[in-house]
């Protein structure tokens, strides 16, 4: 009871009408309770169990052995490959996505092109996982349409030159299919937030277009650009289905490793698996905090 009274008293500047104050004090808590219970059961508990498991040995005693185990070459390599592919696709998707978004926003392009490409980006950023991997197998696999076309029509032998869809670069090309459109979707609002007056003011003060970009456009967009790319990084970092169905689990990614661990304890130490999984959460948490910090900053500027 006192709990609720305190909330009402400090609940901000809006005076509560008497009719609301009369309702039972526990009502709000009752309504929010199912949500909280659900979150505890299916979000906090599972995370906590992995966290705890990561610090236990097989008998349940506290140990740092699993954390130490994360720093063995095999697991470090998995993290390294995962980070490398996330970084590559985030930067590539980020750069191309920025130019595409800018091309769509800047004008000179008919409205219907812009809106249909935007819609397509919404679709493509959600079209991932197994079907996406298969679409790329039909395209760039050993007998994929593009592979065959390049070989027969242009005499370019992709696989002969070392390309392999089921490897790092193949996976990167495939990831780009959802990274690029995602970048377009998240960078478009900040680009639209660049005000025409800034460009005009800069020109008026004697700046050339490239000077405008160097001194104003790029610095103002930088937090959004970095933030978006970090988000893309996280997006690729947690990907599992696409990588699994493309490489059949042959590429050493952390997600793939966790998947194998769930299926059959390939690490021969369940607790090391928990530490591995929780390690991903830590990386993601760092990434998302940076993202939100950057986003807040750019909103500060762009909302002026």
């Amino acid at each position, binding site marked *: 009871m006192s709990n*609720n009274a305190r*909330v009402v008293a400090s*609940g901000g500047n809006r005076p509560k*009408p008497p*009719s*609301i104050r009369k309702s039972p004090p526990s009502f*709000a808590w009752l*309504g*929010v309770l*199912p*949500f909280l219970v659900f979150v505890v*059961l*299916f*979000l906090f*508990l599972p995370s906590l*169990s992995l966290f705890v498991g990561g610090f236990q040995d097989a008998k349940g005693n506290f140990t740092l052995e699993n954390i130490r185990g994360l720093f063995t070459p095999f697991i470090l390599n998995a993290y390294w490959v995962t980070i490398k592919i996330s970084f590559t696709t985030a930067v590539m998707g980020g750069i191309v996505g920025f130019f*595409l978004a800018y*091309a*769509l926003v*800047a004008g000179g*392009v008919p409205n219907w092109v812009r809106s249909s*490409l935007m*819609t397509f980006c919404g*679709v493509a*950023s*959600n079209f991932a*996982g*197994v*079907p996406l991997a*298969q*679409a*790329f197998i*039909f395209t760039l696999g050993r007998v*994929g*349409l*593009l592979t065959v076309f390049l070989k027969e029509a242009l005499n370019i032998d992709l696989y002969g030159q070392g390309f392999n869809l089921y490897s790092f670069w193949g996976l990167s090309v495939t990831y780009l299919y959802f990274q690029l459109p*995602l970048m377009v979707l998240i960078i478009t*609002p900040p680009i639209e937030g660049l005000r025409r007056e800034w460009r005009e003011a800069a020109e008026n003060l004697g700046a050339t277009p490239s000077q405008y970009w160097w001194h104003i456009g790029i610095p103002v967009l930088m937090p959004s650009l970095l933030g978006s790319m970090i988000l893309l990084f*996280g*997006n*690729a970092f*947690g*990907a*599992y*289905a*696409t990588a699994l*169905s493309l490489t059949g689990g042959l590429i050493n990614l952390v*997600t793939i490793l*966790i*998947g194998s*661990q*769930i299926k059959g304890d390939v690490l021969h130490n369940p607790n090391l*698996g*928990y530490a591995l*999984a*929780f390690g*991903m*959460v830590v990386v*993601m948490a760092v990434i*998302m905090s940076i993202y939100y910090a950057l986003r807040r900053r750019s909103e500060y500027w762009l909302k002026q």
Partner: protein
Amino acid sequence: MKKNVFWNWFWIFISLVYFFIPLYATFNFSLKARKGELSLLAYQQMMEDPRILRSLIFSTEIGLLTILLGLLLMVPTVYLVRLKAPRLRPVIEFISLLPFVIPAIVLVFGLIRTYSGGLLPLTNNYTGLNFLLIAGYVVIGLPYLYRSVDAGMSAIDVVTLTEAAQSLGASWPTIMLRVIIPNLRSAMLGAAFLTLAIVLGEFTLATFLVGLKAFGPVIWQVGQNRAYEASALVIVSFIITWVLMGLINFVGRRGAADGSVAAGPR
């Protein structure tokens, strides 16, 4: 000026080619199930495969239940927090964004570890596994659900609406069912379609919890040995995604863009 327009078109052209070729290659392949001619045989075989339809229905059901559970949890929470405890709003928002931090593979790992024994064993029967799947999807969908419900409520100013309804003598059930819910319809529909788009093709949770009962794992299974049918399935699932995204645009929830960030069936 002219130069800029050229570069704009350049990037659009490159992207279009990149977006288009895989779809074309897959579609082209799906028409070649019969040697030497174009046919819809692959689509026919796909339709005749009972597992595919069954799994699609199963995943749709799971999706609908996910939406139902998600809205039941989220709508009253957001509403009450806005009305009675605005101080708690950042807390709820923070909790709702947490799933972004947990990759699907980690979530399913944690769910299995937590519920394969102990006080609440859910993994030893089908009902329990199905429920675990739904719960997992609700967790994954939490950020979008929160964002669209919250945006919907701030768009209609629920506090004032509630006070207006109360001053006219409406009871709490009446307020909820006749004032709040109808005004949230487009926000809730947008969240629903997005959730469905995520759930239908989702592979990671599905494969570990229910296996080949769900659509995502079935697409994968078909892709392992029957390439033509698989290509037809890819086209179909692309169309399904497209339709659902189109519906989101149709119900007018702009900002699906922001909602579709960083989850989905990767």
